[in-house]
C-alpha cells in the first residue's frame, strides 16, 4: 500500500522534530550533568556492586569465571545498575498545553523538553525511562530517548489532559508534567491510584506567564484552545482578582494532593529558566528514590 519512497518521506517528516527536540533536551541536560555528575559521565554503565557466592539456581552463565578462577568457590558478579528504577513520564498532550503568550515558548514544548531532558539524565544515570501511556515501556539506552521523543511528539485533541496510568509499573517513579488547568478530579484519582501502587514522583505544573498575570481587559470571549469551552465577559479586568484566587486555590490543592500522596510539586513558568526546573526535577526524583 505504501511506496517505499513515500514511506521514507513520511518517516523523515515524522522524525523531523526529534533531533531538534532531542538536541535541545540534551543541551539542557548537559548543563546539569556538568555540575553534578561530571565524573560519572565516561565509561559508566557496568558499575560493579558485589560478588557473591553462587547459589543453587544461578545460571551457569551468570558465574564470573575470572573471579571464580582465583578461588575455589564460584562467584556471581552482581551489578548495582541492574536494579535500576523505572521512571514513568507523563506529559500532558492536551491542547491547552499549546498555549503561549507573547514570545514565550508553548507550555507543551517546555514540558516536553523538560521531560526529555530529565529522561536524558535518567538514562545516563542508568535508569529506565518510559511513558505512562503504553507508547514507550520503560527501557534504557539512547534508542529509548528517540522512542520517547517520538512518543512525546504526539498531541491529543482533548482540551485538558489527565494523567494516564495504563502503563505504569508498581513501585516505579513517575513524573507528571501538565498545566493542570483542567478538572482536578482525574488528577486526584490518578495520584491516589499511583499511591496505591506505591508509585511516587513529581508533579511539575507548567504555566504561561499570561495565565499567572491575566493581563486582559475589555469585552472578551475567552475560549479554550480547542474552542469547545468559552466564557464571555464584558470587563475582563474585573475578573482578574477572582481568577487569580481560583488559580492560587488550584495550586494549593495540587500541592496538598502531592503532599498527601508523597509526591513532590513544583510550579514552572515558561518564561523562567528551564535549567532550574530540570534541576528541581532531578533533585525531586533523587529525593523520592
Amino acid at each position, binding site marked *: 500500500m505504501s511506496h517505499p519512497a513515500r514511506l521514507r518521506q513520511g518517516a*523523515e517528516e515524522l522524525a*523531523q522534530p526529534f*533531533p*531538534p527536540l532531542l*538536541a535541545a533536551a540534551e*543541551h539542557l541536560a548537559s548543563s546539569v550533568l556538568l555540575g553534578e555528575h561530571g565524573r560519572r559521565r565516561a565509561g559508566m554503565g557496568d558499575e560493579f556492586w558485589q560478588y557473591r557466592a553462587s547459589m543453587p539456581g544461578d545460571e551457569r552463565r551468570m558465574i564470573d569465571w575470572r573471579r571464580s578462577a582465583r578461588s575455589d568457590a564460584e562467584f556471581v558478579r552482581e551489578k548495582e545498575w541492574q536494579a535500576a528504577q523505572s521512571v514513568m513520564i507523563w506529559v500532558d498532550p492536551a491542547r*491547552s*498545553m499549546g*498555549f503561549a503568550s*507573547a514570545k514565550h515558548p508553548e*507550555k507543551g514544548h517546555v514540558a516536553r523538553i523538560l521531560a526529555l531532558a530529565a529522561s536524558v539524565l535518567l538514562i545516563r544515570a542508568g535508569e529506565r525511562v518510559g511513558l505512562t501511556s503504553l507508547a514507550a515501556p520503560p527501557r534504557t539506552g539512547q534508542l529509548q530517548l528517540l522512542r520517547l521523543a517520538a512518543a512525546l511528539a504526539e498531541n491529543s485533541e482533548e482540551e*485538558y489532559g489527565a494523567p494516564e496510568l495504563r502503563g505504569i509499573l508498581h513501585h516505579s517513579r513517575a513524573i507528571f508534567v501538565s*498545566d493542570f*488547568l*483542567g*478538572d482536578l478530579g482525574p488528577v486526584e484519582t490518578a495520584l491516589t491510584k499511583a499511591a496505591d501502587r506505591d508509585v511516587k514522583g513529581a508533579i511539575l505544573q507548567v504555566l*504561561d506567564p*499570561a*495565565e499567572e498575570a*491575566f*493581563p*486582559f*481587559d*475589555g*469585552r*472578551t*470571549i*475567552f*475560549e*479554550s*484552545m480547542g*474552542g469547545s*469551552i*468559552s*466564557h*464571555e*465577559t*464584558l*470587563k*475582563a*479586568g*474585573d*475578573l482578574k482578582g*477572582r*481568577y487569580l484566587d*481560583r*488559580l492560587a486555590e*488550584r495550586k494549593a490543592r495540587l500541592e496538598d494532593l502531592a503532599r498527601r500522596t508523597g509526591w513532590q510539586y513544583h510550579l514552572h513558568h515558561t518564561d523562567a529558566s528551564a535549567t532550574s526546573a530540570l534541576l528541581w526535577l532531578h533533585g525531586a526524583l533523587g529525593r523520592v528514590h
Partner: protein
Amino acid sequence: MIGAIGFTAPWLLLGLIALPVLWFLLRAVPPAPIRRRFPGVALLLGLEDDDQQSDKTPWWLLLLRMLAVALVIIGFAGPVLNPEERRDGSGPLLVVLDATWADAGDWGRRAARLEDLLAEAGQAGRTVALVSLADLPSEGPSFQSAEAWSGRLPGIEPVAWAVDGEAAREWAGELEGSFETFWMSDGLAAPWRGGALAAFEARGPVTVFESPRPVTGLRPAAFENDAILLTAVRSRAGEPATFAVAAHGLDPAGTPRRLARAEIDFAPSEREASVELSLPSEVRNRVTRFEIEGVRSAGAVSLTDDALRRREVALIAARDEREGLRLLAPTHYLEQALEPSADLVDGALSEVILANPDVIVLADVATLAGIEEEELLAWVDGGGLLVRFAGPRMAASDVSREEEDPLMPVRLRAGGRTIGGAMSWGEPKRLRAFGPDSPFFGLAVPDEVQVSAQVMAQPDPDLPDRVIASLADGTPLVTRKRVGAGQVVLFHVTANAEWSTLPLSGLFVDMLDRLAVSTRPADLDPDDLAGTTWRPDKVLSGFGEVREAGVLPGVPGEDLAEAELGPDLRPGLYAGEDRRIALNVVTAETELAPAVWPARVPVEGLDVRRETPLKGALLGGALLLMLVDILASLWLSGRLTGARAGVTAALLAAVVAGMPGSADAQTDDEPLALEATSEVVLAHVLTGNARVDDVARAGLRGLSDALFRRTSVEPAEPISVDLERDELSFFPFLYWPVTPDQPRPSTEAYAKLNRYLRTGGMILFDTRDADIAGFGGQSGNGTKLRELAARLDIPPLEPIPEDHVLTRTFYLLQDFPGRHDSRDVWVEAAMADAERAEGMPFRNLNDNVTPVVIGGNDWASAWAVSTDGSRMFPVGRGFAGERQREIAYRFGINLVMHVLTGNYKSDQVHVPALLDRLGQ
C-alpha cells in the same frame, strides 16, 4: 455663506440632520468582543461580571465618531474660507486715491487692493481712470484699460502733505460723464470730502475703501520741565496701543543712529498720548528727528529744529568782589533770562572753551590773558557767538582803545558816559526803534527801558554797519562784528541793572533770543519772517523718509509761517540765516479725526481676501478623528496592549509626522549589527550565484550546529554578507566561496576587507575545485581567486604545516578535507626563524591568527545541512565518506576555535618553561 465661510454644495449640509439618528444607532452597539484563546478559561467558568456598564459605547467615543461624521459631511459640502465675491459692475471706473501721508502707513495693502480692483475691472472689461487727489492731473480723468494702469501702479506714491481740498473739490465738480467711483480714502476727516463725494455721486455709485487701522501721527517735540514732551495722536480711539518713539541723530562719531527710545501708551479711549523723554543736553542737541517706530508715514516723523536745541551758554563774569549782593551780580539777569531756554555752563574761561559752548557771555570782562584770547578767537572764528557786556572795568580799561581788539566789535572811547545821573545832565536815554537791518527788527521797544550809562564807540568808518541797536540820540547801544564764522556782540551797557533798565525788561530776553543766545519755541510769525528766504535743507517723503532737498527752490519766510504744506512747501527742515525751522506734517495743533461717510456709501476695508478651500483640511481632520477612534476602540476593548500598543503608537507617530519614509533614515547596518553581535555568528560572502550562496549558508548552518553540539561555541543562524553594503567587523570568520563569475569588489569594499584582515578577521577562501585542480592544474575558480586576492593585504602563504595550530585547536587533525580531500590548504607562512620547542613536537609559532585560509576542498558542501537537519550532499562512499565528513566538521570546528581563541593552543608549548619558572 456663513460668516467668512461659503459652501460649494450647501445642500449636503442637510446630512447633519442624520447625526442624531446615528447617535442612537451607535449608542446601542457595544464594542465588539475579542476572542481569546486562553487555557485558563476553565477557571473563569461561572464568574459573573460585576456590572454591565461597558455595555454601551462611552459618550466621548460617540462624540468622537459624530464629530468625524460631521466633519465628513461638512467637508463634502465644500466649505471655502473667504469665498471671492464677484463685484459686478460695468462701465468706466474712476479710482480716486487720496495718496497722502496718512495712506503711507499701509500703502502696501492699498496697492495690493488697488491691483486687485484693477484686475477685477480688467476681467470685467471696464476702463479705468486712476487719480491721485493729492497730485491732481491738470485735466479730467483719462479712462484707459485696467492693464495700462496696472503697469503704472508702482509709480504712484503717497505725498507728504494733505490733499488740497479746494482744488480737489473743484476738480471733482468739473467731472463729466457717468462712471462708478472707487475712493481709496486715507481715513482722515476733512471738510472738503462732503463736496467731493457729492460730485462723485452725481456721476455714479461710489464705494469707499478705507484702512481700519487708525492713522497715527507724532506732534513736534516740545520742551517742558527739562524733558522733551513727545505727543502722538491717532485718528481713532478704541483699543489700547503702544508705540515706540525713537529719537534719531548723529552720535559723537557723526554716524546717524538711534539715540533714545520711549514708549507711548494710548489709553483705550484716548486719541492722544504723550511721554516725557529726558535726555542729557549733549544728546538732546544732536537729535535731528523723532519718529514712531514701525509706522511708515511722514506723519509719524517729526523733524526737530532749533526749537528743541538748547544752546549752551557760558557766562563769565569778572571776579565778583561784592559778595552777597545777588541783584547786583553782573550775571544775575543773564542767568534769569537764559535759564529757561538755555543750558548754562559755569567755569573758568579756559575750561569753558574746551567744552565748545554755543555762546560765551563775558560780563564786564575787560582783559583776557594771552592764551585765553587766542583760544577765544579761534572759537569765535569757528562759529562761536561771543556776547560782551560793558561795565565799569571795561570802561576803565584800555581794551580796544587805540586799536580795535579782535574780540571787540568797535573801538571804545575812554571813560564812557553817564547820562541823567545826579552828576550829569540830560535825561536817561531811551532806545531808538530797531532798523530793518538789525536782527532785532520788529521787536517793540518798551518805554520803560532807559539807559543811564554806557561805553562809547569810536566813530570809525565801519561803525554804522556794526550798530544793531542804538539809543534815541543815535549812540550805539549794541554793536556786532562778524569774525570768521562767528560773531562778537557788544552790549554797551552792563548786564545788570546798574547802567540801564534793559536787563529788567522783556526786551532783553527777546534780544538775546534774536541773537540766538537763547532759543524759544519758534512762533512762526509771518511778520517776523516776511522778506526772508528759507532754503530747504531736508525734506520728508510721504513715507517719512528724510531726503536731501537737492535743488528745490527756496521758500519765502511768510509762506513758511502761513501757507499749507504742498508740493511747493514740502515738510522738512528749512535753513535761514542763523536758524533752522522744521515744518512737520503733524503740527502741535493737528487733530486727527476719522473720516465720516454717509450711510449710503459702502465702505470696505483693504483686505485682499484669498479663497481658501477647507475641504481637504476637514476631511483630513475626519480621517484623523477616525484614527483616534480606532485607537480609542482598541484601548477600550483592551486590545491596545504590549507590542500592539507600541506598533500602533509608532504607526500613529508616522502618520502624524507624515513621513512614511522616515524609517529609511536608519542605516541598514543596525539590525545586522544587532543580529551579528548579540551572538557568535558565522558569515559567508555573497557571490551572486544563488546556488553557491545557498550551499555556503547551509554549510555554515551545519557547522554552527556541530559547534553548538560539541563545543561551548553556540553560534546563531549564519548570516550572508554583502561586501559592498555590510559592515564586516562584526564577524570573526568569513567563508568565501569563489565562483568564476562573481563581481570584483569595489575599492571601498577592498578597503573594508583589508581593514577586516588587519584587525584579526579571518577569511576562508574556498575555490571548491580540489577535484579537478591541483598540482599545476588550473581552474577558473583559482584564476578568479588570484584576481580577487590581488588587492587584498595577504601575507606570504605556505601549505599548512604539520605543526600548525589549526591541527590541534580542538581536535587533533592532520587532514583538512571537505567534500574533496586535497592536502593543498594554504595559511600564513610561519616565521622563518621559528624553532622547534624543546620537548615538543611543534615549533614556537606565537604568531597571529592566520588572516586567510585558502583551499579548494568545498567544505561548505561537506558541512551543509538542510533546514530539517539532513545532509545536503554525499561525501565519499560509505563509512569512509562519513569519516571524511566527520573530519571536515572537525576541521571547521578547529578553524572556528582558531579564530576565536587565537594561538592559545600554541601557547601550550611554553607550559614546561612556565612550570619550570614557577619552581614546580
